[in-house]
């Protein structure tokens, strides 16, 4: 069984229109707000337009996702008007589009999608697996809408409170879920397999579980104003870049888990689902490598951005602060993994195990440091 990669291009007319649409959107932003934009904002709009255009040009699902996020966010902003109080009176805001509601929808949908993927896998039903995909897309859309609307809500609280919602643990957990899901959906289409969906969504469901506990038990969902150290442009790019890294590493670990289960099942000559329905081991291995490489590239960028920011805020590009040091540890760990695979040709179970262990190292850098070690990055305390 060979899996042929899906590198289907969309028809040229659609690709062209998509690019045009993105460029028009950027143009519209410039014509509306160009006068108040500073150089960073201009840069970010251009970067966003080009990235969205590139991602969407051959990916119909992504195009629909962006359209839905844009539409729903604009509706929510319209419904809010100038008053945060609308969140309690307007029907659509209360039940669907206020950031809290959207995030609850996201949470529910991700958990349901996980269940659907597993049922689809074990019942060998491609229809139910497709339902899983649809739910993942819906969850991701609601998560994105939640972030967008939360961004607006922060400005409605007060102009000086307003900030991009990537500033504390609650917000980055949403970001993590959404980014991991998008990465998965990209590879789901590329590799034409939904069998891995349940495994990847499992880590997202875990994040959702934490998110809900954090919101209900600790009241972390409230929008808090930024401490002075976080009032910087660097935050807007440092944090998302980091979470592409974290998301990719998490996905690699879950594929590693699926790899191990499948290879044991096939060793036993089992005729069960894990032996028969999962993709080829080489395919999973390839996917593991691709996600780790992607994560590593973005993690490198994020760490460098962090160093640039640190040089502006803390008086030095590197301070051996616990978070920085753990970022380095994560980086070294995956650097070693990549060398092992690319240069020493290691493959199979040891590398899958290593990817799984990598998740724990990453998790410690992401959460453990805040919980146990403190330091300069103590923005989200548990």
């Amino acid at each position, binding site marked *: 069984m060979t899996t*042929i990669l899906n590198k289907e291009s969309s028809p040229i007319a659609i690709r062209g229109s998509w690019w045009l649409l993105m460029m028009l959107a950027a143009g519209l932003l410039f014509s509306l707000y160009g006068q108040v934009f500073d150089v960073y904002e201009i840069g970010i709009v251009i970067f966003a337009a080009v990235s969205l255009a590139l991602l969407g040009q051959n990916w119909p699902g992504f195009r629909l996702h962006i359209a839905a996020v844009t539409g729903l966010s604009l509706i929510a902003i319209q419904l809010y008007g100038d008053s945060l109080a609308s969140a309690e009176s307007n029907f659509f805001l209360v039940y669907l589009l206020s950031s809290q509601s959207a995030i609850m929808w996201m949470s529910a949908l991700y958990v349901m999608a996980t269940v659907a993927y597993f049922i689809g896998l074990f019942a060998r039903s491609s229809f139910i697996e497709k339902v899983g995909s649809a739910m993942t897309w819906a969850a991701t859309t609601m998560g994105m809408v939640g972030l967008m609307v939360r961004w607006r809500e922060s400005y409605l609280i007060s102009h000086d409170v307003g900030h991009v919602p990537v500033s504390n643990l609650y917000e980055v957990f949403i970001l993590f879920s959404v980014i991991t899901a998008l990465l998965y959906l990209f590879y789901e289409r590329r590799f034409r397999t939904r069998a891995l969906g349940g495994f990847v969504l499992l880590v997202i469901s875990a994040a959702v579980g934490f998110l809900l506990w954090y919101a209900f038990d600790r009241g972390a969902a409230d929008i808090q104003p930024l401490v002075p150290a976080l*009032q910087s442009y660097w935050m807007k790019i440092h944090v998302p870049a980091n979470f592409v890294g974290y998301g990719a590493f998490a996905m690699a670990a879950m594929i590693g888990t699926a790899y191990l289960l499948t290879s044991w099942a096939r060793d036993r000559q089992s005729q069960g689902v894990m032996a028969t329905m999962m993709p080829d081991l080489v395919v999973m291995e390839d996917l593991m490598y691709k996600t780790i490489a992607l994560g590593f590239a973005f993690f490198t960028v994020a760490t460098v951005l962090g160093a640039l920011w640190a040089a502006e805020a803390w008086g*030095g590009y590197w301070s051996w602060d616990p978070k920085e040091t753990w970022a380095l540890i994560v980086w*070294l760990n995956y650097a*070693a993994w990549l060398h092992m695979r690319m240069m020493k040709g290691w493959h199979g179970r040891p590398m899958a195990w290593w990817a799984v262990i990598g998740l724990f190292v990453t998790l410690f850098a992401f959460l453990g440091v805040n919980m146990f070690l403190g330091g300069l990055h103590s923005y989200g305390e548990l």
Partner: protein
Amino acid sequence: MSDVNVPPKPRQSFGRRLFLLLGSMDLAITLLLVLAIASVIGTVLQQNQPYADYVIKFGPFWFDVFETAGLYDVYSALWFLLILTLLVVSTTVCVIRNAPNMIKDMWQLRTQIREKSLRVMHHNDQWSVALTPDKTVEQLRAGLSDAGFRVRQTEKQEGQLLSAMKGGLNRLGYLFTHIAIIVICVGGLLDSNLRIKFAEWQGDLKIETRDLASSDVPKESRLTVGNQAFRGSIQIPEGRVANVVFLPLKDGYLVQELPFTLKVADFRIEHYATGQPKSFETDLVLFDDTLPEPIKTTISVNHPLIHKGYAIYQSSFADGGSGLTLEAWPLDERAGAAPEKFEGKVFEKRQMTWGEKELRLELNSFRPFNINPDPTEDNPKNVRNFGPSFGFKLRSPTGEAREYVNYMVPVMREGRPFFLSGVRGSPAEEFGYLYLPVDRQGGMKAFNGYLQRLRDAETVEVVAKQMMLETLAQMSDTDSERLQESLQETLQTLVTMFIRGGFTEVGHFIETSLPEAQREKLGPAYLSMLREMLARIYFMDQDQTQPVTEAELLFLQDAADAIGSLTRYGSPVYLSLKNYDHVQASGLQIAKAPGKVTVYVGCTLLILGVFILFYLPQRRFWALIKQKDGESEIIFAGMSNRNPRDFDMLFDQMRTQLRQETGNSDSQ
């Protein structure tokens, strides 16, 4: 770190073998992992803390062991630097070994390849077409070029060889990433404090451990202006200047001189509506003799001032020695005397002669406002501004100290205003609070007067006598002189006990000193007699014809509660803040990092390299065209150094396309 395996040769020299070992993949991967594990130490053990804290934490034995291992500053410990150096050496050797091949590989089209090699490649195909070899070559060449490949044709014995390549720059990815590591480490080394540590080890520098003014620090602990890296900090009070920074090192510090003078004109904290800090800003004036005029600017977090490679950051703030106008109200036997007014400054220590007691007053802190959770609200997020406060310690001649924090403006509790003073015996404890009731004039007079009367033996005696007589008058058995005496004495003792320790003390007396049989009856009687005494003493100087108001009864109750807890308060004096002149100090961090540009160049190389390495695979195709029976036979092969699975597809796509273009559409 190479694709190219160097076959081991027999009888290699030691140098050659060492070179190979240093450049080996195994060593490189080991070093990456060892470095990762070693880095953990410094995140688990808090770095660069005062040595005294470590001694307390680990005890003297382990303190010494850990200090020798350099664990208090792991990242500049010798062994850690050694690992880093080894990593740099290993990477360098690797680059030296591989760079020539890599660079060659970027351009060379491998035209030397033999037919045999093509046939054993993982990706190969063979087909025949009814075209002349020249025509075939032309077709294939066009096909490969259209796909973006660089193609070269060479004449071979067997026929014509087309060699094609795309993504040769992938090799740059290897070079960039590995050179980047070296560059970043070298840049980091330039900015490390290695030079200072070396000078200290040599004995040229001496770490200062005493608490001295910067100008008093001796020469052997000072670093003169130069181009070396450093990172230090200083607190400058508003309106004051400084031209040095302190570099913390081991259990002390060094003084780094600056080529300019900084003046803090003003320091500001702005707040959000919810009370959280919004910004920390300092108005700075920088005087540099080489400038036509001083630089005036405002710095804040994330917005440093950079002058001649010196970066000046807003990093903290503190009190800069605020002026405090204080009134000392006596709480002991001197109660009733007019309060003593005096001026003090935060961080000032002064001797206070209080009656016969010698106390040392240490003024430690001042806060212009205190935004704290409101204790009258259930939700801890509802905060309230409790106004200015100042903190101080009172130290007895034996050295024991209690710590206090007093609030300037009255705090409301159950609708009544109180002066609030917190006290604790050690920093590990929570503050306990004393609530002194505020009188109708908004001051301490009423409380102070009441306290004075309660402490005055004569007053108490007079009141006790009167109460005794009135009490006995209602009873039939009034002739016993002994009863009179004993009752009066009891009343007086109750008040004295109350002064000594409040209701607790009286309760304790009832529990321990009264015979058990009488306790149940006498206990409540004693307490009500005490209450009566307290009230009589309170109201004694008031117009007895006026009815007693609710407010006065409450004041009496509050005052009695406060007096009852004075022993626990532990201070013979209440310091009331009347006025203040807030002076802040801005905490600046000043750094010089000559290696920064180098590090940034390294980072750029690293990012470029990583993306090239992962996303620009090097791909090669070869086509050998042989003439055979009037037809042309094509041997087609390809290889890729990355993403083999993606290449499977590309290879299929290429051969199908080329077969079609050369007019052969049989698929194999």
